[in-house]
């Protein structure tokens, strides 16, 4: 397959998976015994949470790789991962609020899980803003990589928050106790969301690569002089 077409193919497959997973979750899966139809939100909320955690881990890997190797390709990938993390954190918070209202009676509560996710969203929104406002590519890449490594500290805290503190948010489920009719839409949507994000991040990293090449290229005058010298 032509490499330039790969992200578009991934996005097309992801769209089909998300449509079929959502159809299964909305039309075929039965309502849950206690939460009724509201539980169907789980088929988009949990995949968004898993994908968000994976993308944040990818952002951390990109940041460390850039700091160790100073290769611009890792900065381009970091830019894509940071924007994706912000989008997924925001989506997660909105889905969570829609779930919380009928189940907990409130749109928002300063519960440990919700608060740690809000901190994560604020941190990565700040890193995205930092990248937007710093013009020097070297400073931008280094500062955002360091900030990402620091911001990533919150990711395990988000994951374990429901175990460490008395949280309104339920703990992670054991799959052996979850019905097959609930797992099919959950994993189909997770596969779809993951492929969609990989495809979109690849496109976003390519756009960042074009800008990086322009920013780090020698100025035209310098290029001419160096050509004359070498000639």
């Amino acid at each position: 397959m032509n490499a330039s077409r790969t992200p578009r193919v991934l996005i097309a497959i992801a769209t089909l998976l998300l449509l079929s997973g959502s159809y299964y979750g909305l039309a075929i899966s039965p309502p849950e015994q206690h939460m009724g139809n509201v539980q169907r939100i789980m088929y988009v909320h949990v995949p968004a949470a898993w994908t968000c955690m994976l993308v944040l881990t990818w952002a951390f890997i990109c940041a460390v790789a850039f700091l160790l190797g100073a290769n611009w390709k890792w900065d381009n990938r970091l830019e894509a991962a940071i924007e994706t993390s912000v989008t997924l954190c925001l989506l997660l918070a909105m889905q969570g609020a829609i779930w919380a209202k009928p189940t907990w009676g409130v749109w928002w509560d300063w519960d440990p899980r919700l608060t740690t996710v809000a901190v994560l969203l604020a941190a990565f929104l700040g890193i995205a803003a930092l990248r937007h406002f710093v013009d020097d590519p070297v400073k931008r890449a280094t500062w955002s990589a360091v900030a990402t490594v620091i911001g990533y500290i919150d990711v395990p805290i988000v994951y374990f928050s429901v175990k460490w503190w008395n949280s309104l948010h339920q703990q992670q489920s054991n799959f052996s106790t979850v019905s097959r009719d609930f797992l099919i839409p959950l994993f189909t949507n997770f596969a779809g969301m993951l492929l969609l994000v990989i495809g979109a991040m690849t496109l976003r990293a390519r756009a960042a690569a074009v800008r990086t090449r322009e920013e780090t290229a020698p100025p035209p005058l310098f290029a001419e002089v160096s050509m004359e010298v070498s000639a």
Partner: protein
Amino acid sequence: MNGIVTGGWDFVWAAYIITALVLSAFTGRAWFLERTARRGQ
């Protein structure tokens, strides 16, 4: 059904529609930025 949560479909639709809108906007933006950058080279 002896559910402890009443209603629900309006919340379900809201969650799915917001998910579709956010993911579409995010993917569309990445697509647009890549195409614009490629054409501008």
